[in-house]
């Protein structure tokens, strides 16, 4: 079978016909595939407004087709910046709806309030153990009272993540899991995986007593996306506007 003949089965429905790709038959199957990927990546995909939750970072929203898709599990991965990005999402949602945060005891509400979150609309659910987190997430997803459930990653069985993903899909609630490094099962069920990496630290003023570590610059990379090509990245400043 010629190499180009296998390409149409991988094609996105909205993509242009791949007859043009047949012209590069001589370049081999891999090159055709890369070309097709590049074309798909070049074509902007915009998801319906009601199907996404904006992230408070316009550049990232553009990359994600409007925001994180509702009714899915999305992961925020990395050592630095994940909770800052998650707080932006929470702030966007608390303008109109409730958000539940599963707290393992490390939540610091004053920083959430500074982000612009309406704390009146945040349910802080204390859950220290993995089992308690899973049960709380289960109840919250089934109840559909919140538009977003935010939880730190915990060690759960593969079947539990699958069940939570199905519940999120059925209820139309976005479940965000923050993890330094997502486990295989979590990565598999996640519809969107974003990875945050520290690029540089922003220091305001001089080192020492007169200085302030105002924030940091992050590189956010889309590692996986259910509806579009992964691989895009943006740079984001996470710092008080006055100190940037």
């Amino acid at each position, binding site marked *: 079978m010629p190499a180009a003949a296998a390409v149409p089965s991988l094609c996105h429905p909205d993509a242009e016909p791949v007859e043009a790709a047949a012209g590069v038959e001589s370049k081999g199957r891999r090159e055709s595939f890369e070309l097709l990927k590049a074309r798909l990546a070049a074509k902007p995909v915009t998801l319906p407004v009601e199907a996404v939750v904006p992230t*408070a970072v316009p550049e990232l929203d553009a990359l994600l087709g409007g925001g994180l898709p509702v009714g899915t599990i999305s992961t925020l991965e990395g*050592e*630095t*910046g*994940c*909770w*800052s*990005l*998650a*707080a*932006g999402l929470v*702030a966007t949602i*608390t*303008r*109109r709806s*409730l958000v539940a945060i599963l707290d393992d*005891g*490390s*939540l*610091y*509400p*004053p*920083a959430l309030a*500074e*982000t*612009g*979150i*309406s*704390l*009146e*609309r*945040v*349910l*802080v*659910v*204390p*859950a220290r153990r993995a089992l*308690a987190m899973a*049960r*709380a997430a289960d*109840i*919250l997803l089934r*109840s*559909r*009272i919140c538009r977003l459930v935010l939880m730190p990653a915990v060690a759960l069985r593969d079947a539990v993540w699958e069940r939570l993903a199905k519940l999120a899909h059925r209820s139309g609630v976005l479940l965000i899991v*923050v993890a330094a490094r997502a486990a295989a099962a979590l990565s598999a069920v996640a519809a969107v995986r974003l990875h945050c990496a*520290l690029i540089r*630290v922003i*220091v305001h*003023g001089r080192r*020492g*007593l007169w*200085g*302030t*570590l105002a*924030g*940091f610059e992050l590189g956010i990379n889309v590692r996986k996306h259910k509806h579009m090509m992964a691989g895009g990245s943006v740079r984001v400043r*996470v*710092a*008080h506007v006055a100190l940037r």
Partner: protein
Amino acid sequence: MLLCVSAANPPAPELWEEMLDALDAVSPLIEDVRPGLAFLDMHGIAGDARAQIAQTQGISIRFGSAMQIGAGPNKIAAQAAAYVGDGTICEPGLERALLAPLPLTLLEIEPETIERLRLLGIEKLRDLARLPYGPFTRRFGAAAASWHELARGIDRRSFIPRAHAVAIEASIFGEGRVTDETQVFFALRMLLARICTDLERCGKRAGALRLAVELEDAGTCGFDLPLATPTAHERTLFEMLRVKLENATFTAAIVGLRLQALQLEEGGEAQTLFCADDLDPQRVAVTLARLEAVLGGGVARAKTREAYLLEERFFYEPFKLSRTTQQCHQPELIPQLRLLEVREIPVELRAGEPATVNRQTVRECTGPWRIAERWHSSNLALGGVIPSPSTPLGVNSVEGRDEYDVVLEDGTFARIYHQGSHWYLRGVYE
């Protein structure tokens, strides 16, 4: 004639409620203004004012709180009589004379207005009563008309009797014993049906439920179920009771159930016209109860407050669904501090500031910021000099600490602090 019961020091609300319940024996019509102030309508009740005051005093003494009781033809006169002295009676027609020497504070005017009136030379009610009605009301607004009348002993305020607490409860006791949960739920459904019917008849909603379970071994178990949103909806109440009992275990078979509706509120539920984004409060209440049953602790909402220490800048309170709309700001991405369990860490200093933290080189460091509560009462403030980290703290038992933000070589962005001779990790920015 009205009686005024006034306390210089307002009693606790529960005690005050009990006292008002006891005062029902004096008069069935009592206006509860606030804890520490009530009026009793004595029209048509046998006995003269002096005897009625004595009876009221007898009841207030039983509760151990010092009350001043006065009688008068209207509320302001009765209040003035209580102010003048315990047992004072203001006869009809003498209201203005009784009020004349009394201060303006009797009228419950805002302190700022009283201060303005004082600057104008008006310190007593007689001064206020002498002012020309028209110019005074034009100068101080519509409320001033009422003040002027009250200062002259004319009180047009309505008497608003307090509603009597209605006890809504139902109980069931059987000859046999219950060991199956379905039987318990069946009994609960029966009790709830009776309770909800009573609530609907009274036009009330329950803000809480109390379930008392009597066991075969003569023991009892109590369950308090606060509701996020008061309701009279039978199915919602049943759902919440069921999740509350899901994790309960009993030492013996159940022989009786008693269910009580508490914190009754007026019926009807607030509805908004544009309700697309409104949450169903009953669904929220059921979810909260379910989470509480599963986790053992309640769902909370955070509040912030001013404080020196990071960990004291917020507190939690039980979550309540609020319908108030708030001004929401544009989201701004800022570093989020995550509070870790405080643990001691090894820190090496160079030139007075951390050079290595947890055996990792410090790339950036800012601080120290001295955090000391009650700093103003210690010698830490003397001379405005911040002591070096090596200076022992705790002089005059002040617990202070020096906080630093550090960036480590692996990119960790942490808040550490130095207290006494030890270093601790407080949290990381994520």
